[in-house]
């Protein structure tokens, strides 16, 4: 503190006496002086930084994409290995008991996404679980049903906005810049929260998302592409993408002779780590490929029109495969008043739509009977964001107003921003999950909510097994 005061005092007196900023004339006079000045260092910007070649980035991105898809397949593969042992099946049932209740599913999605700061990771993992059909012979149910996956995806949508909020905290020391940055970041969060507040009860009560996607699933299930024994070309692709999973299974069970439960657990955990690493690498490489274009993309010209900003949001997010990255890019720009909140709002909506492509990529790679539910799950993510955009773009004054209000409030009491982040993204979901688990309010496969029974009796599908139910 003393050093800071001393430094600031020195700066002020130096400035007052003209030492720091000599008038231009003094500078010019120096030019004619015989007094020598030390030889300058090599000129700035002389290309000292080496750049990773574009072709290499593209190659690594393709490799990362392969590993990403392979990891999604490996998740289900690991759990299948675990399920060979009845104790392993029981463990899996216990593990997934957390998410059969839509409320806990919502908070599980929120908590996982907040921890890894990537909704793409959570949604891809969920797609992997949904695509892992029939863990054991004679088991007619999926590991995770499409309907159970939707609340997790909703939670992931909220959780992904933590990255933008953390970026805004970097501006904490500059009040006005922090106010604007935080407003931009939290606008994304409020949009997601409002969408969940509106569509979560509608989904639980009426299946506004699960009904259309289960219809899609039924339509896709009859397609030859998703047959148990697909055509030669599809079979080759399936085998190629499944190599890492098959290799890992062979290595653990046959080479090292490890039992089913630990083998499966190792596979599943490695798969999640691989998913995280591959996704991170993919995003980094893709970001590097578009880095040179970013400054021109984020221009007032493109953001003058809401429709253009929306399309830019979709394209940017599809390009880098991460809404966390594309939203956190816009936060400092709003802070620096290059763009304003109203201009970036359509971009944030577009980013939400664009990020659904990652889960879609993962789903398209799942062949066989697991394909249709995986694709349906990914479409559910897309549909949820389309619904949110359809409602809250016309009603933009609500999230924008809330964002401005919170930005102003947190600029005056900056601890509120930190409290909000810690509370919403960690304490709330962790606390509610803990309370629900230990007070016995969690559901298992055997119990159903009244809403699910209603949906079943409407002649739709069993929300846990996704199989048609006779009314």
């Amino acid at each position, binding site marked *: 503190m003393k050093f800071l005061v001393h430094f600031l005092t020195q700066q002020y007196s130096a400035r007052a006496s003209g030492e720091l900023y000599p008038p231009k004339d003094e500078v010019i006079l120096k030019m004619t002086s015989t007094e020598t000045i030390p030889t300058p260092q090599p000129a700035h*910007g002389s290309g000292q930084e080496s750049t990773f070649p574009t072709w290499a980035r593209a190659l690594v991105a393709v490799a990362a994409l392969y590993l990403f898809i392979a990891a999604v397949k490996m998740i289900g593969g690991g759990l299948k290995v675990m399920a060979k042992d009845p104790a392993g099946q029981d463990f899996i049932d216990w593990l997934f008991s957390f998410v059969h209740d839509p409320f806990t599913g919502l908070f599980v999605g929120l908590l996982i996404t907040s921890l890894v700061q990537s909704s793409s990771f959570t949604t891809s993992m969920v797609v992997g679980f949904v695509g892992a059909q029939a863990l054991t012979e004679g088991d007619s149910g999926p590991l995770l049903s499409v309907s159970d996956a939707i609340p997790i995806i909703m939670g992931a949508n909220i959780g992904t906005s933590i990255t933008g909020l953390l970026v805004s905290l970097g501006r904490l020391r500059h009040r006005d810049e922090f106010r604007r940055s935080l407003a931009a970041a939290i606008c994304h969060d409020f949009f997601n929260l409002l969408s969940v507040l509106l569509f979560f009860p509608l989904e639980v009560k009426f299946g506004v998302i699960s009904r259309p996607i289960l219809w899609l699933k039924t339509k896709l299930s009859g397609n030859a592409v998703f047959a148990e024994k697909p055509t030669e070309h599809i079979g080759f692709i399936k085998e190629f993408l499944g190599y890492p999973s098959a290799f890992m299974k062979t290595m653990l069970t046959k080479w090292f002779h490890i039992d089913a439960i630990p083998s499966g657990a190792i596979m599943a955990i490695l798969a999640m780590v691989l998913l995280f690493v591959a996704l991170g690498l993919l995003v980094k490489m893709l970001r590097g490929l578009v*880095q040179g274009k970013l400054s021109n993309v984020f*221009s007032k010209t493109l953001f003058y029109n809401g429709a253009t900003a929306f399309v830019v949001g979709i394209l940017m997010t599809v390009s880098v495969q991460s809404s966390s990255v594309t939203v956190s890019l816009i936060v400092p720009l709003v802070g620096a008043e*290059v763009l304003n909140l109203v201009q970036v709002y359509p971009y944030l909506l577009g980013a939400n739509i664009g990020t659904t492509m990652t889960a879609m990529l993962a789903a398209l790679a799942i062949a066989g009977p697991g394909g249709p539910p995986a694709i349906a799950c990914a479409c559910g993510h897309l549909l949820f964001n389309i619904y949110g955009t359809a409602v809250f773009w016309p009603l933009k004054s609500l999230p924008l107003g809330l964002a401005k209000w919170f930005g102003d409030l947190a600029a005056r009491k900056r601890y509120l921003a930190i409290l909000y982040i810690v509370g919403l993204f960690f304490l709330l979901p962790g606390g509610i999950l803990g309370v629900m688990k230990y007070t016995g309010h969690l559901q298992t496969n055997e119990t159903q909510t009244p809403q699910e029974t209603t949906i079943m009796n409407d002649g739709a599908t069993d929300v846990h097994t996704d199989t048609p139910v006779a009314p």
Partner: protein
Amino acid sequence: MFKEIINAFKHQDEVKDMTVQVGEMLDAGHWMFDQACAVLLRKASWDDVHGPLYERDAQINAAEQSIRERIVTHLSVGNSADLAPCLVLMSVVKDAERIGDYCKNIFEVGKFYQGKFEHRSFSEPLNDIRNKIGGLFDPIKNALLTQDEPAAERLLKENSGVVKECDLIVQQLLCLQDELPAAEAVACALLARHYKRVEAHLTNITLSIISPVALLDFFKDVK
């Protein structure tokens, strides 16, 4: 809409584009300098030149704001490797903008001083300085766009005497105060100062090609 998006995604080098924009500012400054001198030498009417000159100055100011905004955007989206060139650009656009301001000042001398420059001991050196400065704009712009360090060093060496000449004119005016009409003396003194400032800013732009960021606007005495 889609054309704009496609063009944005095609875009390659932001720093290079901004440097080109600075080159355009220098072109505008050159034009302003020529027009202001034309008014001074009674080769053009100040009435005709006034509107276009101030308009061109407004364009230079708008270009400066645009470049600053682009720099903030460019650095905010993670191009920290371009920090040094961006800091240089921030300094260089200031110099380019000030050239426009001093050209307006030269124009105003031509507008308000309606007499003749009769004393050759002042009018000839001022003519020489004016011609030298007019001839600097294009080579400096080319050196900036191509980052030609040898050309920049040569330009600095060749034109290091202009400042001395301007100071000498002012010194002489102060010594010969009784032998020159006051209006002409004031006009000559103002022109000497304004030419010196224009040359100084052109020198700063040239220096930016060879100096590190910390030594921008500081000149090593080249012998």
